[in-house]
C-alpha cells in the first residue's frame, strides 16, 4: 500500500484547487451560496402503476423493503441519553469539472494492420521505451550475446590485419567455423542462445495471463492464431538478429576483408546456406518449445527455466549414458543434439553421431516441434477473456 505521498489526488479537477492544510482553526463564514450539499430529493408522488412488461414484481406483492427493515439502521436502540463526545478537523473546497465526449469518425484498418501492431509492439520493445517492457536484464543480456556472437567476425578481421594464415585457419570462414558459429556447443549453445530463448520466451504469453492483458487482446477483433503467430514471429525475429545476422556479418567480413572473388564465394555459399538453414531450424525449435512452456505456465520464470532444463537436462542425461554404456540413442531426446546432427549433415562436416543416421534426428526434431505447437495452440484457444 505504499503509494507515494506526492500522487496528486484523483480526479484532478480542471480548476487547480489549493487543498488547505487540515487546520483546526474554526472559521465561521456564513457561506454566500449554501454549502455544496446534495439537495434533499424532492418527494415524488409515487403511483402504484403496474405496467405490462413486468414479469415478476406484480402489484399484489408490493416492494415493502421488509428485508431492509430487518437490517437495523445502526445497532444502538436510540434511547441513549445525549452526552459529550470529542472530535477535530475542518476544511472545505469546491470543484468544477467539465467533461466533453469527443466522437471519432475514423474507421479501423483490416486484419494485417492489427497483426503488424502486435509484431511492432514486441520488437520495438527491445529497442525503445513505450512498447512491450521486456525488462532491463533481458535487454542487457541480448546486447551482450549479440556482441559475443560477433566475436568470430572480429577475429577474422584481426587475422586479415596480422596476415598470419595459421590464425586465419583457426578463425576464418571455413566449414567447421560456419557450423561452429551457429551450432557450436560451448560457449554458444550452452550459455548464449538457450538463455536468450529462455529470457525472450519467459513471459511472452504467461505474462498476459498474469497481468490479465489477455482480456485486452481477446476483447478485440484478434483471433487466437494471429495472436500466437505474431508472438512467435516476434520472438523468432529477435533471435534471428542475434544468430542469423551475425552469421551473415561473419561471412561478409571474410569476403570484404580478404577480397574474396566470385569463385570463392560460389563454392563457400552452399556451406553458408547450410549453416543458415541450421540456424533457422535452431530458432524454430527453441521458440516452439519455449512458447509451449510459456502458454502452460503463469509465472515469468518457469517457462525460461523449463526450456533450459529441457535443453541442458536431456543433453547431460545423454552424455552420462554415452560415457557409461557407450550408447548414443538417447541423443534423439535432446533438442540440441538433433539440431547439431542435422546441422552437421547440412554443412557436411564430419558427423559426431555415428550410431544412427541424421534422418532420425530430423524426425525427432519434427516430432518435438509438432507437440510443442499443438500444446501452444490448444492452450491459447482455451484462454479466457478475463483472468481464469
Amino acid at each position: 500500500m505504499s503509494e507515494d505521498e506526492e500522487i496528486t489526488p484523483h480526479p484532478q479537477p480542471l480548476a487547480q484547487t489549493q487543498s488547505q492544510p487540515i487546520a483546526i482553526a474554526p472559521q465561521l463564514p456564513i457561506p454566500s451560496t449554501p454549502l455544496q450539499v446534495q439537495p434533499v430529493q424532492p418527494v415524488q408522488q409515487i403511483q402504484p402503476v403496474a405496467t405490462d412488461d413486468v414479469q415478476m414484481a406484480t402489484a399484489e406483492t408490493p416492494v415493502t423493503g421488509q428485508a431492509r427493515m430487518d437490517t437495523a439502521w445502526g445497532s444502538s436502540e436510540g434511547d441513549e441519553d445525549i452526552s459529550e463526545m470529542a472530535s477535530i478537523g475542518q476544511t472545505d473546497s469546491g470543484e468544477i469539472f467539465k467533461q466533453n465526449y469527443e466522437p471519432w469518425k475514423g474507421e479501423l484498418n483490416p486484419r494485417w494492420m492489427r497483426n503488424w501492431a502486435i509484431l511492432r509492439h514486441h520488437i520495438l520493445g527491445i529497442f525503445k521505451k513505450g512498447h512491450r517492457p521486456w525488462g532491463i536484464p533481458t535487454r542487457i543480456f541480448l546486447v551482450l550475446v549479440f556482441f559475443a556472437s560477433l566475436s568470430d567476425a572480429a577475429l577474422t578481421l584481426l587475422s586479415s590485419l596480422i596476415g598470419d594464415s595459421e590464425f586465419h585457419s583457426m578463425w576464418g570462414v571455413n566449414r567447421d567455423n560456419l557450423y561452429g558459429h551457429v551450432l557450436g556447443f560451448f560457449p554458444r549453445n550452452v550459455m548464449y542462445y538457450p538463455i536468450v530463448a529462455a529470457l525472450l520466451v519467459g513471459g511472452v504469453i504467461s505474462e498476459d495471463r498474469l497481468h490479465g492483458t489477455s482480456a485486452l487482446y481477446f476483447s478485440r477483433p484478434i483471433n487466437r492464431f494471429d495472436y500466437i503467430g505474431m508472438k512467435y514471429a516476434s520472438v523468432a525475429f529477435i533471435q534471428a538478429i542475434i544468430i542469423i545476422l551475425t552469421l551473415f556479418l561473419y561471412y561478409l567480413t571474410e569476403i570484404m576483408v580478404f577480397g574474396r572473388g566470385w569463385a570463392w564465394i560460389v563454392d563457400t555459399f552452399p556451406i553458408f546456406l547450410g549453416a543458415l538453414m541450421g540456424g533457422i531450424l535452431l530458432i524454430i525449435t527453441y521458440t516452439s518449445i519455449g512458447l509451449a512452456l510459456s502458454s502452460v505456465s503463469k509465472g515469468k520464470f518457469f517457462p525460461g527455466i523449463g526450456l533450459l532444463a529441457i535443453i541442458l537436462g536431456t543433453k547431460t542425461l545423454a552424455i552420462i549414458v554415452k560415457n557409461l554404456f557407450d550408447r548414443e540413442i538417447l541423443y534423439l531426446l535432446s533438442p540440441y543434439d538433433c539440431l547439431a546432427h542435422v546441422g552437421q549433415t547440412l554443412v557436411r562436416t564430419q558427423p559426431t553421431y555415428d550410431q544412427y543416421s541424421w534422418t532420425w534426428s530430423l524426425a525427432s526434431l519434427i516430432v518435438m516441434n509438432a507437440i510443442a505447437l499443438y500444446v501452444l495452440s490448444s492452450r491459447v484457444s482455451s484462454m479466457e477473456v478475463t483472468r481464469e
Partner: protein
Amino acid sequence: MMSPPKKDNVFRALDRKLGAVTEFTMRQYRTKLSTWVILGVGFIAISIVVLFYVDSMQQEIEAIDNDGDSADWDGDGYPTGQERIYGTDPENPESHPGTFTPPIAPDAPEKWINEDDFDWDLAASGDTTAGYDDDGDCRLADSTQSQKDNNRNNIECDIILDYDEMRGEWSEPNSDRLVDEDPDEEKYAKEAIHRAFLLAIGKMGFVFLLGIFLPLFLATGLIREEMDNSTIHFMLAKPIARRDIFLGRIVGYLGIVWPYIIAMGAIVGIISGFAGPGESLFRFADLGMWMAIIFATMLATLVYGMLFCALGTLWKRGIILALPFAAWELGMAILSFNAPTSSILRFSVIGWSLNIIDAASLVVWPNMALFISMGMWGGGYGGGGYGGGGRWDNSLEGAGALSAFASDTGLGISPIATIVVSTLVLLFQAAILWLVGSAIFKGKEIE
C-alpha cells in the same frame, strides 16, 4: 469457555502447532500437480539410465585372447599354449602332444582364451607381490630363472604392486612376462561398469540431480508462494512463532521428498542387486552402498531445502538467487571428480554429501584404486610386450568409466570417520540455514 490447558507432554505440543503445519504442507504438496510432475520427471530421468544399465549388463562382452596362445600356428590341431606346456614346437606341425605316449587329446581353442586371469588379493596394501601364472606359460616354460623374473624381485612369475603414498594411488604393476596376461574381459568389465553405474547414479543422479533440483522446484516456494497468494495471512494471525512455521514447512516438504528418495533408492538398488554381475543371485554387498546414497541424498535435500526456502523468503524472485547456488554446486560436483582433495570442496554442500558416497564405496569395495589400476593395466602383457615393442594399450572396458566416477574421500581420514564428519557438517549447515531462514522470515514485513 477455554478449558484449562492440560499438562503438556512433548507429543501433545508437537501434535498441536508444528505437527499441524507439517501435515498441512504435506497434504498441500500431495494435491499440487506440479509436485507430481517434478517427481515424475526425476523418476523418468533415473529410470532411463537404469534401463541402459540393465541392457548393458545382459550384453555378452566377447572374450579377447590377449596373448594369442589359443591360435594353432602349425595347424597340427593343438593350440600354441598347449604345445608350449608340453614343450612341443608350436611352429612345427609334426611336433605336437599327440605324438607322446599316451597321446594327449588336443584342447578346444576356447580353453586358451582368458586362461590367465587376475587373482590378486584385493585386500593388499603397501607394496606386495600378487598374481599367479594360471596357464603356466611362464612357470612351466623351460627358461632360465632370470627370464622368469623380469621384475627382479627373485620371485618367479609374479607381479609387483606398490602403493605410492604421496599420490595416494597404485603405480602401474610391474609383472614378469606371461603372468596374468590374458584376463577374463567380461568378468572385469561387468564388475567395473556395475560399480561405475552405482557411483554415477549415486553421485550425479541422486545427490546432484535429485538433491538440488527437487529442493529448487519444491522448497523455494514453501514460504514465498504463501506470501504471493497472501494465504500466509491466515497462518501469521495465529499464536505460532514464525520460526515454527518455517520449520513446519520444511519438515512437511521433507515428508514428501524423503520417502520419494528412499523409494527410488530401494527400487534402483534392488534392480542393480539382481541385474549386477557376480555368481550370487543378489549382490548383498552393494546394499551398504545404496544406504549411503540414500542417506547422502536425504541430507542434501535437507540442506538445500533450508537454503532455497530461505532464499525464497528473502526475495520475491528467490529462484534467481537460487540459480547461482545451483551453478556453484555443479562446479563443485565436477571438481570433486577430478580433484577430490581440493579444499574448496569444503565450502560446498555437495562436496560433503559426495564424500559420504565415496567413503561408503571404499568401505563396500575395499580396494577400489587397486581394482582400477588392474583394469587400466589389463594384463599389460609383462613389460616387454609379446611380439616386441611397447605395450598395447589394452586397458579393459569399464575401467575408464570407473576411474572417472570413483574418487577418493579427500579428507585423509578413515572412511567411517569421513561419513560421520560429513554428516555432522551437513547437519550443522542445515541448522545454520534454519536460523538464518527464520530470522529473515521474522524480519519480513508482509503487505
